[in-house]
Every structure is written in C-alpha cells, then in structure tokens.
C-alpha cells in the first residue's frame, strides 16, 4: 500500500476529516481511472474476479437481490393458487407452459414453488445475501483491516456461491422440474425418484447446489473468524468492537460448525438416491411394489438436517441483530444500552442454537422425555432474546431519534422480532406443538421472526451503508414508502395466518376446498394474496431505487454522513483496495461514545481526553 502525503497529520481528527474530503474528491473525479497507481486493476480483476472484500460484498448483495426477486416471485405465484384456487390465470400458462396448464398452477409446480421459495430465501438470500454481503463489507472496515485474512479464499467463497446459484437455477429449467419435497428435503420423498417428478434430476441438482453452497459459506466463515480474531487494528480490543462485528463473528462460528453436518447428511442422501444404500430408507412400498431398501431411518436425516437447520435460523438472524444494534445506536444518538449484555446474549444464543434442534421433531415419535429437555432448552432462548429486545428499546428510549429509512427498518425489525418471538413460545412447547405443527401458525411464526425480520435487518443495513458502498445515497422518499408498505403489509400477510393455524389449517396444501374444516377462510386467503402482490411490487420499487441510486443517487460529500463512531467512516469517500490511503487508524475507545460529555459523537479514533474515563 502506498503511503500518501498525509501520514502523521491524519491522526488528528479534524485534519484527517479535511484531508479525507480532499482525497475523497480526488476519488470522485477519476474513481474508475487507476488513481491509486499502486497496483494495476483490469475490469476483470476489479469487478469480476476481485479479491477486494468490498467488491465481493457487492457481488454477494447483487446476486442476493436477484435471488430475492426470484424467490419472492415464487411466493406470489403460490399465493395466487392459495388465494384463488381453481381460478384460471391464462398469463401463467403463457409463461410457465405445462407447469400451469389451463392457467392453473399444477400440483407438481406448486410443490416445486414452495420448495424453491424456502431454499432460495433461507440459503441464497438470507445466508449468502445477508452475511455474505455485510460480513465481507463491514468486518475489515469496522475492525480496521486492509482486507480479509485470505482475500483469495474470499473470492472463492463468492464463486462457489455463484456456481451453486447456476446449478440451482438450471434445475428450474429441466423437464422434470426442480426439487419439490419441501426445503427440508426429508427422505423418503427426496430419496426416491419414484416419489414425484421433482425427486428425479431436480433433487440431485439441489443436493449438488447445496454442497457447493456449503463450501462457499465455509470458506467465507473461516475468513470472517480468522479476520476478526487476527487482523484488528491497534487498540481495537474485542470489547471495543461494534456489535455488528460480534454478531457476524458468532454467525460465522455457527455456520462453520453446523454446515458440515448438513453436508454429511446430504452426502448420505446422495448415496441413497444414486448408489442403492439404505441410510434413510426402510420398509417402503411404492405403487404396490415393496422396495428392497431395509434398515434405514428417515429420522436420522431429520437429526442431521436440523442440527444445521436450527443454527441456520440464527445464522440468518444474528447479522440482522448486529446491524440493528449499530443502526439504532447511531440514529438515536445514544450509546447502545448494555453492550456487555448484548454480547453475552449473542453468545448465549449461539450456544443454545446447537442444543434445540429436536424441537423441529416433536411429533416424529421422539421420546417424550427427550422432548421435554428440548422444550426447556428451547424456552431458555427467550432469556437472551428478551435481553436484546429490552436493550434495543432502552437504546431508543429518550434518544434523539433520526428517522432515516434505516432507522425505521431497524425499529421494524424489533417489532417483528417481538411478535414472532412470542409465538415461538407456543411452538416451543411440545404439547401445544401437537396441535400447531405443520399448520399455518408455524408459517406465520418463522416468517415473522426469521424471514421478514431478517429482511428488515438487511434493508436497514443496505440503506445505512449504501453511502459507504457506492458513494451515493438511496432515495429516502422511496425508502419511506418501501418501509411503510412492507411493514404494514408484512403484518397483514402473516398475522392472519396465526388464526388459520390455530383453526387447524395445514401448511403446504394445494387446495383446501375439498375438506370442510380447512375451508373456513377463503376471503382471508384472498386478502393475504392481494397484499402479497402489493408488498412484492414495493420490493421491486426498492430494487429500482437501489440500482438507480448506484448510478444517479445524490452524491455523498460528507465522509461521515450519519455522524457515526465506527472506523468505516474514516476511510475516503470511495475507498480503494486497502481501504485507508495512509496508515490504518488507531482505536482508542469503544464504538458507542454518543452524547458523551456534551458532544454529539466521539469517533473511535479519538484518543481518550485527560478528564475522561477509559473505555
């Protein structure tokens, strides 16, 4: 890294800001020319096979956005079927041919849609798109590192994700269609090609794609952990790190320890499918023919799957929690309430995440005694969750809140996390779960607490760090419309599903008209479908805002537009590879000195004053 003309002065804050603006302006003028001169960058090395963590983050984000549109569209399509069963939409036949014969979504297509919606949103959007984006972008910037511990592995991480995406996309275009046994791919449905057309080639492609995805997320996770523990700048002790970094750290730990177990389970499934082993198969009759497979156990797969599957929920949720903590503190101009409690609760959630997987299996014939232990461990998660909610609310309490779109989405996250968390207490009890399992109540619960809440965290993060990512602002008016429609819409979509679930309406059913007691809510289903379409349209507006703002958004001129303390705002307006032009700044305090000693904010780089207590 070339050290620039302002080496020593840069340590003084006021000077450094002035210089940052100066060098930032230089960047804006010819940012895509090779203004740095320290290493040659071609188009390919800068934008495609880039090893710059910031570019890789943007690659993850844009790929994630594309997947979110695809996965979201799937949900609109199956909502059409749920809201208007039996009605013909000729346009569907135009686009999907035999999958929507006569303008009606065919059963195989319906199951493929719900399977792919779950797979895409859980893994490709809310794992790769969320922690792939923000871990890559924020870790080096907020801990004061030039890049990841291994930029090369980091690049590989994205390209494995890209490969996984290509394989998964290709499974949508084969004649037998994509996997359609649910995103949990339980055997025997997923293990036998005879089970459904989606269990043929589509299922193999699903497994291959997920194996590539696991490799991608492991390469990423290794890097995140190693970078956080090894490459922090001088003075950045672990307890001075912003909570975003702590959350991303625990996310990576969860991923590194749980994804390999999913891979094990999938390898055994691949053997069962293609080589005739019987790890999961036993005593199965298909069309009157008794299969030779013997001695396997389908429950074994569920254990292996949910050993990942449950931590996965927190892999999705923790980055959102971290970003929300940071954004709420910055925008209420107050220190985060209970930093150590936040950290401790993140740690507790990480530990508990590994100890609760069997609560997904209460009704599989699990030993009731074992079930009761898992009930206890599951309900224990309420403790750290409540601590976090309390601390977010107390951070907002009597704050000088600036209601930017990012703040609104962060507050929305807290709201959804409370609503969805409370229904978790219902489902975590094995006795109530006998009634509620596999109903719309479950759908409502996990969409609110994990799906929509994490999307809100992601939106908050995008609106908040967009100026650092692209040197421009997103349009706030569109941001406010986006927030309010999504917020109200999410509750309108998912709140009624609780009632449906309590009334016993099962999830995943194609058409409920044939069974009287399931057919109680046709108008409610129509309403949910209409709201889904509106909310989806508003997400497209967000996507427009995102891409439009990259090129035409209002330019950022203040290197620290939100008045934040963290290190990423000490970089030039458009940081090159290496992030800081001169020395990496030294850190003297934690990230949350807001409204201290009558000052609005005190950046982490500012030395402790004479009359100040150390933090």
């Amino acid at each position, binding site marked *: 890294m070339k050290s620039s003309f302002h080496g020593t002065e840069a340590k003084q804050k006021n000077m450094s800001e002035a210089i940052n603006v100066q060098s930032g302006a230089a960047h804006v003028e010819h940012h895509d020319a090779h203004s740095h001169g320290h290493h040659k960058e071609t188009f390919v090395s800068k934008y495609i096979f880039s090893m710059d963590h910031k570019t890789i983050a943007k690659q993850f984000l844009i790929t994630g956005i594309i997947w979110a549109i695809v996965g979201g569209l799937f949900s609109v399509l199956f909502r059409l079927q749920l809201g208007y069963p039996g009605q013909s939409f000729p346009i569907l036949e135009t686009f999907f041919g035999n999958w929507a014969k006569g303008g009606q979504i065919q059963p195989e297509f319906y199951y493929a849609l719900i399977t792919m919606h779950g797979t895409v949103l859980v893994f490709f959007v809310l794992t790769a798109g969320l922690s792939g984006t923000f871990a890559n972008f924020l870790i080096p910037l907020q801990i004061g590192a030039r890049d990841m*511990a*291994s930029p090369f592995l980091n690049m590989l991480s994205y390209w494995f994700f890209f490969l996984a995406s290509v394989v998964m996309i290709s499974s949508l275009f084969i004649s037998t269609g994509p996997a359609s046994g649910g995103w949990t791919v339980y055997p025997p449905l997923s293990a036998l090609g005879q089970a459904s057309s989606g269990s043929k080639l589509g299922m193999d492609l699903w497994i291959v794609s997920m194996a590539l995805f696991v490799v991608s997320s492991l390469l990423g996770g*290794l890097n995140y*952990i*190693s970078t956080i523990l090894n490459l922090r700048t001088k003075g950045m002790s672990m307890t001075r790190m912003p909570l975003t970094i702590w959350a991303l750290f625990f996310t990576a730990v969860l991923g*590194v320890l749980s994804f390999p177990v999913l891979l*094990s389970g999938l390898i055994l499934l691949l053997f069962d499918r293609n080589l005739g082993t019987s*790890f999961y198969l036993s005593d199965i009759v298909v069309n009157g023919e008794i299969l030779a497979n013997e001695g396997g*156990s389908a429950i074994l797969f569920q*254990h292996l799957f949910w050993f990942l599957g449950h931590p996965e929920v927190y892999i999705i949720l923790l980055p959102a929690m971290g970003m929300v903590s940071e954004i709420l503190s910055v925008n209420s101009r107050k220190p985060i309430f209970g930093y150590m409690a936040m950290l401790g609760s993140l740690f507790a959630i990480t530990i508990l995440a590994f100890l609760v997987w069997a609560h997904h299996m209460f009704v599989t014939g699990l030993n009731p005694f074992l079930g009761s232990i898992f009930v206890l461990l599951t309900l224990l998660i309420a403790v750290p969750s409540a601590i976090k909610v309390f601390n977010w609310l107390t951070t907002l309490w009597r704050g000088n809140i600036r209601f930017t779109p990012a703040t609104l989405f962060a507050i929305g996250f807290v709201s959804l996390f409370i609503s969805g968390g409370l229904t978790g207490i219902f489902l975590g009890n094995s006795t109530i779960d006998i009634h509620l399992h596999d109903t719309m109540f479950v759908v409502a619960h996990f969409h609110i607490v994990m799906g929509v809440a994490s999307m809100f965290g992601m939106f908050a993060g995008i609106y908040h760090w967009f100026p650092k990512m692209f040197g421009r602002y997103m349009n706030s008016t569109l941001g406010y419309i986006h927030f309010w429609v999504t917020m109200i819409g999410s509750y309108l979509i998912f709140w009624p599903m609780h009632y449906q679930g309590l009334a016993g309406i099962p999830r995943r059913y194609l058409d409920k008209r044939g069974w009287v007691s399931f057919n109680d809510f046709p108008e409610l289903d129509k309403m949910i479908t209409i709201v889904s379409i509106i909310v989806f349209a508003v997400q497209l507006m967000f996507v427009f805002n995102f891409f439009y703002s990259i090129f035409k958004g209002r330019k950022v001129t203040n290197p620290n537009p939100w008045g934040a303390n963290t290190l990423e705002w000490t970089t030039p307006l458009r940081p090159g590879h290496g992030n800081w032009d001169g020395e990496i700044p030294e850190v003297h305090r934690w990230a949350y000195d807001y409204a201290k000693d009558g000052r609005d904010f005190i950046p982490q780089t500012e030395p402790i004053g004479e009359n100040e207590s150390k933090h």
Partner: protein
Amino acid sequence: MSTVSLEQKKKMHPHKFTLWVAIGSIVMMFAGLTSAFIVKSNQTGWKSVDLPNEFWVSTAVIVLSSLTLQMALSSFKNREMNKYRSLIGITLLLGVAFVVLQWFGFQNLWAQGITFKGSGAGQFLYVIFGLHAIHVVGGIITLIVMFIKAFFGKTKLYSSVPIEVAALYWHFVDALWIYLLVFFLIIGG
C-alpha cells in the same frame, strides 16, 4: 498485497489460524457421520464389518508420512534444502500409497460381498473412509505444489509458514484417520 503487518507476526499467522478453524469444521462433518453411525448401529438389521488388513498397512503408511513431513519441516528451518526436497518427495509418495491402499481395502470389502446395498457398517465405511481419502487427496495436491516449488521454483523459499500450514493439515488428516480406525474397531466391530 499483504494483509499481515509486522505487528501481527508475533501472533499465530492468520493462515494457520484459518486452518485451525477449518479443522474444527471438518471435525464437525465427521462427527455428524460417526454419530449417525452410532445411532444406526443400535437399530435392528445392523451388520458389522471386519476391517481388511489393507487398512492396517495404510495406517502405518500415513503415520510414517507424518514423521517424514515433520522432518522435512525441520530440515527446511535448518536450511538443509536437499534433505527437505527428498523428504517432501518421500512424504508425497507415502501419501499416494495411503490412498492406493485405501482403494485396495475397499476392493477387498467389495469382494467379500459388502456392496452399497444395505445400511450396515460397511456402507458407512465407504462413505466415511471415502470422504477421509478425499481430504487426504487435498493434502497430496498441496504436497505436489510444495514439491514443484522446492525443485523448480524460481524464487528462493524462506518463510516456513506455508510448510507449517501444510504439515498441520497433514497431521490432522493423519489423526483423523486414527480416530476413524479406532471408532470402527470399537463400535463397528
């Protein structure tokens, strides 16, 4: 561009640290498989398996290869480059021999009538030992790269970090193999 400053050199090298985390990850993968094995071994219709002798020979081979790689590392640190080159070569040969012996072991089992059909210890053995062998192949590829660099590299090698990282990985797959062998002897036998 190096992401490692002078100050950070005092601590463990980040690449080595990353490998330790990766080892944790690989351990979880095999823990998943061996715990699946334990669950299944308590169910009816379980068939145990006798390990063919090839696996004992391969154990000796991989333990020996760990020794030669460790000797290669110390000769590199003493700048005895000729000794280093030959020891890397020997380790590479032993590594290849290990994989070949595993293959013979599989063939022996297959000849005994233990195929993919069924759900006993034999089927798990193919999966678990097979995945282990793939991890060894990863180590062999690393050794080949080191071998080529040692003989044909244009720049002189001074940093021992890459070799230390490779050796750490190699010792890990060695230890993992011994764990798997003992596991099969105790639970699968």
